[in-house]
Structure formats: C-alpha cells, structure tokens
C-alpha cells in the first residue's frame, strides 16, 4: 500500500490533503464552537457557482470558488446579523442557487469538463503542484489571521454580547471569520470535494471537542484527526482502485472514516461520563 507514497501524483494529493487538514482543523474549531455549520455548508456549495464560472470564462475555477465563497459568506454573514428570522431559509437558497449556477455555467461552457466530479467529491489525480502551493498560501493567510486575532475570535465565538460591550468590533470579526472559513473550504475542494467539504470542516472538530479544554488544543486535535483520516482515505482510495479497479474518489472515504472516529470518540466519552 505504501508504494503509493513514491508516486508523484499521490505525493501531491497527500500534501494538499495534509495542508487542508490544518485549515479545516483550525477553522472547523470555530465553525463547531460558534455553531456555524449550516452557514459554512451554504458557503461551500455556493463556491461551486464560482467553479462553473471559471469553466465558462476560462479562468482558474479555484479563483471562482474563492470569490463565490467569499461573496456568499459576506451575504449570509451580514443577513445573519440583520434578519430576525428566516436565516436558515436564506442559507438553503444560497446553497442551492450556488450549485444551480455552477451546473448552468458548466453546461454553457464549450467542450467537456472531464474533472467536474473531482470538484464535487475530490480526486486522487487532479491535484497540481500549483494547487499545493495555493493551499499552503491559504494556510498561511488563515494562520496569520487566527494568531493575530485569537483572543478576539475566541471572544466573538464564546460570548458575543460581552465582546461587543468590551468594544470588540464583533460584526467585522464575524465576517472575517466567515471569509477565512471560505478560504478553508477552497483548500478542501480538490481533495474531498465541495459537497463533502463541510463534513471535514465539522466532523474532526466535533470529535476534538470531546477531548479539549481550550480552543487551541481543539484546533490541534482536530487537525490531527483530519490529517489521519485524509491520509488513510487517500491510501484506501488508491489501494481500492489498484486492487479492485474501483474508481472511488477519496472524499467519501475520508468523510466516512472521520465519522467512524467521531462515533468511537462519542462512545468513549459517554462511557467515561457514565462511569465518572
């Protein structure tokens, strides 16, 4: 199985997956502890509209995904602070409209889009060297933002009312957090895919929360879980394709592994709580 590690394409997808694990461990921690999962789901699916637009107009689909993700995040983020009700309806609309736009744009684009499903479910073979560099750059942006504003993000997620009274610009920080979440989703697109990105953003962090007493610890544990599941999922995807001829994209395997880890963690925690 480990012969895969010697193949250049596999090294690239593994590098992208491990780097993406950092982004989703860090941002996933905020998404889970602030309760922004459906909001992030909306952002992720809206990003597909940008992928389609990239195909149609001939610019890199990743740029389109980042742009649409940021726009959707801004729209839903501002709405979430203004609307008295109906936020979940708006999120589902952004979610569906983003997907619909993507499909329409791709249909309008000339030629055949061979790697389209790879944007939806991830792929072993479509990760380029440039994409690895992009994910690394996004990791750096996310890292700098989170290190600089750690105490503010923590305050906004923990107790927004108090943060506001203490003079923290809550709304701007919340929107910035959503923007960073959009970037984290972009890091996940190639490896696990848009449809499954939200799972890798939330499931490892939700597992990490069982065992963490601070946000920083939770980020570390979530990153470790995401990295392990990504590595195992990629290896498994490669192996199943080699030995059985299955063309199973890595995204679903990674998500199922992460969910299994979550289930085991929840059971262990329940037992510990029950005996203590």
């Amino acid at each position, binding site marked *: 199985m480990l012969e895969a590690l010697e193949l250049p394409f596999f090294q690239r997808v593994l590098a992208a997956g491990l780097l993406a694990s950092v982004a989703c461990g860090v941002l996933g921690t905020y998404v889970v502890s602030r309760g922004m999962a459906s909001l992030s789901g909306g952002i992720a699916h809206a990003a597909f509209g940008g992928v389609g637009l990239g195909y149609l107009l001939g610019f890199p689909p990743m740029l389109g995904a980042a742009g649409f993700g940021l726009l959707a995040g801004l729209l839903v983020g501002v709405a979430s602070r203004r609307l008295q009700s109906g936020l979940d309806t708006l999120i589902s609309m952004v979610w569906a409209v983003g997907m619909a736009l993507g499909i329409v744009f791709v249909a309008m684009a000339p030629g055949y889009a061979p790697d389209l499903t790879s944007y939806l479910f991830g792929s072993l073979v479509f990760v380029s060297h440039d994409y690895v560099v992009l994910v690394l750059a996004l990791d750096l942006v996310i890292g700098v933002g989170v290190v*600089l*504003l750690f*105490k503010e993000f923590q305050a906004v997620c923990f107790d927004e009312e*108090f943060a*506001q*009274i203490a003079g923290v610009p809550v709304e701007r920080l919340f929107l910035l957090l959503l923007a960073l979440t959009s970037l984290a989703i972009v890091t996940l697109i190639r490896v696990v895919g848009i449809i499954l990105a939200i799972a890798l953003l939330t499931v490892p962090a939700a597992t990490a*929360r069982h065992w963490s007493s601070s946000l920083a610890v939770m980020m570390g544990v979530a990153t470790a879980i995401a990295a392990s599941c990504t590595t195992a999922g990629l290896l498994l995807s490669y192996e199943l394709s080699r030995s059985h001829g299955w063309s199973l994209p890595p995204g679903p395997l990674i998500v199922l592994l992460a969910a299994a880890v979550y289930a085991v963690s929840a059971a262990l925690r329940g037992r510990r709580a029950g005996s203590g």
Partner: protein
Amino acid sequence: MTTPALELRDVSFAYREIPVLENVSLRVEPDDYLAILGPNGSGKTTLLRLALGVLRPDRGSVRIFGEPPARARGSLGYVPQRARFDLDFPIRVLDVVLMGRLGARGLGRPFGPDDRDHARRALARVEMSDLAHRPIGALSEGQRQRVLIARALAQEPRLLILDEPMASLDERIGRSLWELLGELSREMAIVCVSHDIGAISRYVRRVACLNRTLHGHPSQELSAEVLEATYGCPVELLAHGHPHRVLPPHEGDS
C-alpha cells in the same frame, strides 16, 4: 458636585415604534449602589443596554462619568443575567476572566502577564482561585456567576452594571453573592437590575422602580405606593433580612 457615574437625561427609546422607555432621568453617584426594579418587559434591560452603549437613545443623553458610553468602556464592568454561552465551549475559567481584559489590551495584541495578573486577582476576589483551570462547563451555576463577576472585575470598572445577576440561583448562593456585591460597592458604583423584589437585599442603598417611566425619585425609600405604580397591582413588601423595614399592614389582617 462630582461627576455622576451614570447619568440619563430625558431618555426615550422605542423598539419598532413601541415605546420602551419614556423620559427617563437617572443620576447615579460614584459611590452609589442602586437597584432598578421592574416587572418583565418594563425596559430594564433596555436601560442597561443604553448605559452600556449597545443601544443609542432616540432622545435624551446617556453619560458615563461625563462621557458617552462608547468612550467610557474603560470604566464599565458588565455582568449578564446568566451565562449565555455554550457550556460545552472548550475554555477554562481563567480564560473567561481574561476576556475582561479585551478592552484594555486592544485589537490584535495577545494577553500578557499583566492581564493574567489582573484576571487572577479578580478570581481571588470572588474566591474562585482554586478553579482557575477548570473548564467553564464543569462549574455549578453559582460558581459560573462568580466567574462572570470576576470577568467584570478584570475590566477594572468604576461602574459595575449587573442584569438580574441572581435570577437563576438558589437563595443561599444568591445571598453570598449579594454579600460580595455589598463589599464591592465600597469601591465602585453599582447598578443592578432585577424583577424580583425579594432579591433586593439590605446591601442595596437605593431603589428605583421602572415601568417604561421611572416611578418615585430614586432617593426615595422603597414604598408600597411606588411598587404598586410600577407593577400595576398591589405588591407585598417583604423584608429580606432587613430588621428596620416595616411591613405595611394587609387589609383584613387583625
């Protein structure tokens, strides 16, 4: 004349055309300990949010030590009604108290040893030093309320504002917190809001009754008439550990 800790002049505020506060004037001296009483929906929380600078009045002015609330954040400490946060949130007690230092430290700068000292002192003040490294969710409700008071103390307030601080606590724990507030009131002005008349303790120095407008000048003794005007129905005045207060006779009592 000293600058008042909190001064409201003819303040009116409406939510979507519905008046919540009308022509409320209030003056709180730097050594005052004022309780604002009122039924649910009387505008108590709105009044606090105006004082905290979260809301702006439609008419009238709000001043904290002579300044608009937005510029007076350094003199304010705030204790919410109860923990609004998720009890599963991964955070330790000391880090919650450190949030009281957000305003002093400023955007984008990490907390330093100085902030940690402030937070530790504030925790010691509420007798919670032993639990500094516990997850916040592992605390009892009374302990959590103490942590929230410590967080407000870490703000180094000259005016401490509390919104129904004992609402969710049983009587014994509530009493120990009232005692703590009584001690603190020697060092700072305190404004405390409550809908529970029974919660007004002997430590409070003045009482104002609010129901859209203020009833009775705040310097006045709490009387059955003032309470009746506030609650819109006769109210029984009970003396909670107050040996000097006289209960008004009930009709029909012999």
